[in-house]
């Protein structure tokens, strides 16, 4: 566990739009250690979403080096990148991204499908994971039978089911009322206490303040990096 989850050095990302080069990241360096609890804060257009996609292995940097779990993303094929996402990273999205016609249990088991694990074992592991996020009584419910908070818990269980070392949460409380949002953050923090590194992307200062470390982004650069205050 001595390998950092993420090591980014001078990472840039430039989009080509109608022949124009639009720099979204202009040189970001960042290390995420195992067990970190980090918040990335910034206004829309600051580059925080682009950074999160890069950290999650959904995208590749234009320049600089990015190591995820010790592996250089630049040298990986799309298939290897998919395997990396599957094995080391869990995603939690603002809008949950659950499959609508699929039960909570099968939504949670989805990442295991791409590991070639059979249905029975997927369901057993998914059920255990749902139990861990407090949804043992919602195993066979479909998303439309669940509240927003419950849906986000299903999504967190899905992110955890492969046993990742890093959990990336993009505005995980953005679609929830504040009480529910707090309970989701509490859940994430308890996971962090068990050793999962968490990177939280948010524009909400109050949410960010709960993290151990905050990174403020502006115009594609990290402008401020502060240790979190525990108040």
């Amino acid at each position, binding site marked *: 566990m001595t390998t950092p989850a993420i090591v980014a050095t001078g990472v840039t990302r430039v989009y080509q739009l109608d022949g124009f080069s639009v720099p979204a990241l202009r040189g970001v360096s960042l290390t995420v250690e195992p067990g970190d609890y980090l918040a990335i804060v910034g206004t829309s257009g600051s580059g925080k979403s682009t950074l999160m996609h890069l950290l999650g292995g*959904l995208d590749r940097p234009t320049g600089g080096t990015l190591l995820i779990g010790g592996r250089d993303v630049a040298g990986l094929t799309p*298939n290897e990148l998919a395997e990396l996402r599957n094995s080391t990273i869990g995603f939690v999205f603002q809008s949950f*991204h659950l499959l609508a016609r699929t039960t909570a249990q099968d939504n949670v088991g989805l990442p295991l499908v791409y590991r070639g694990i059979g249905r029975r074992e997927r369901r057993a592991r998914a059920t255990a994971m749902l139990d861990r996020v407090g949804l043992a009584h919602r195993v066979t419910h479909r998303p439309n039978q669940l509240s927003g908070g419950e849906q986000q818990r299903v999504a967190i269980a899905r992110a955890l089911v492969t046993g990742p070392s890093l959990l990336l949460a993009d505005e995980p409380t953005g679609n929830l009322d504040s009480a529910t949002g707090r309970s989701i953050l509490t859940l994430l923090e308890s996971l962090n206490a068990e050793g999962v590194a968490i990177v939280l992307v948010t524009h909400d200062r109050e949410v960010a303040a709960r993290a151990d470390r905050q990174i403020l982004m502006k115009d594609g650069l990290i402008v401020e990096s502060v240790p979190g205050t525990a108040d």
Partner: protein
Amino acid sequence: MRVAEAWRVALDALRANRMRSLLTMLGVVIGVAAVVALVAIGTGTKQQIERQVEGLGSNLLIVVPGRLEAGAAPTSSPLTLDDADAVSRVVGDRSRVAVTIASGETVRAGSRSGFASMQGVLETTPTVFVRELNRGAYLTRTDVSTGRRVAVLGAGVARTLFGDRDPIGRQITIGGVRFRVIGAFEPLGQSLGVDRDNEVHVPVTAAQRLLGTDRIDGLAIRAPDRDRIDQLGRDVVATLADRHPDTDFSAVTQEQILGVLGDILGVLTGVLAAIAGISLLVGGVGVSNIMLVSVRERTREIGLRKAVGARPRDIGVQFLLEAVLLTTTGGVLGMLLGAGTALLVDGLSPVPAALTWWSMALAFGVSAGVGIIFGVVPAQRAGRLDPVVALRTE
């Protein structure tokens, strides 16, 4: 991703849009059904004709004046019974040679009458052709040599003139001339479009007297063995050409007749199947179209699956299987519909239809192929989607 899982996902996706899946499938169903039914009808017709030609008897050689070529003018026959005797000498066995002179005549028994095909023949006819008697006896050699006015009725003629009564020994008139019924045939049905049950066989000599001629229309020979049939045909034609230098003669075997008819029907069946195949192609375009819509609709799902570890290939296979499932299900339904249509046509109409395994297998294979061909572009598009863009799609 395991194959079983991929099938399950594809099936779920199709179930989620039942109506759309069914309508898309319908294009393939109709195409496959059309191929199967049309090939069945073509095959059935071909088999029926083969049975009819073979039903005439085996090793048969038919000798007619004129050339058997497309566009050849019909030739009036110069043949007489003397020619038949000469041919008998070539064959070496009189009982293997049959002659005919045919004419449509009105037949009458008491108040009942009908129109029948009078056939002037030798007593050898039932041994040369396959012809079974139902009752009574056939013509004898004496009947032929003396021109006796006796007749053997086809099953249809017997029914028309006598209903269920026994016709044996009764008097009829053919073209106004009195004949005595001595036998009746078993029903035979149609052969090459001719109703064989509407024949009346009389001694060729009696027929010639009735028609005021000494000619015959043609000869048929039952060859002693298959290997000699072509040589025999050439010998017979040569003999006849010697005797009638102004006329061409042709000798054809059943194989030749079957070959020509088979070629014609084969082309016809092929053309019909090709037309049906076009509708299958149109069905395939429908599948492609709906799969592209499906990829667009499920962009977010694709993004999510990629985020949790699906490789481009996993996504591509999932959509390809969906297309293949769509077309093969349509293929199976189309096969059933086509087979049902063929059986219905066979049972309820005079058109024969015969289902063949190869046409069903072909139609199924083609429908699966259509799924792959028309599913591959949407599947590739899905597999290549950028997960970042896909996740952002609303």
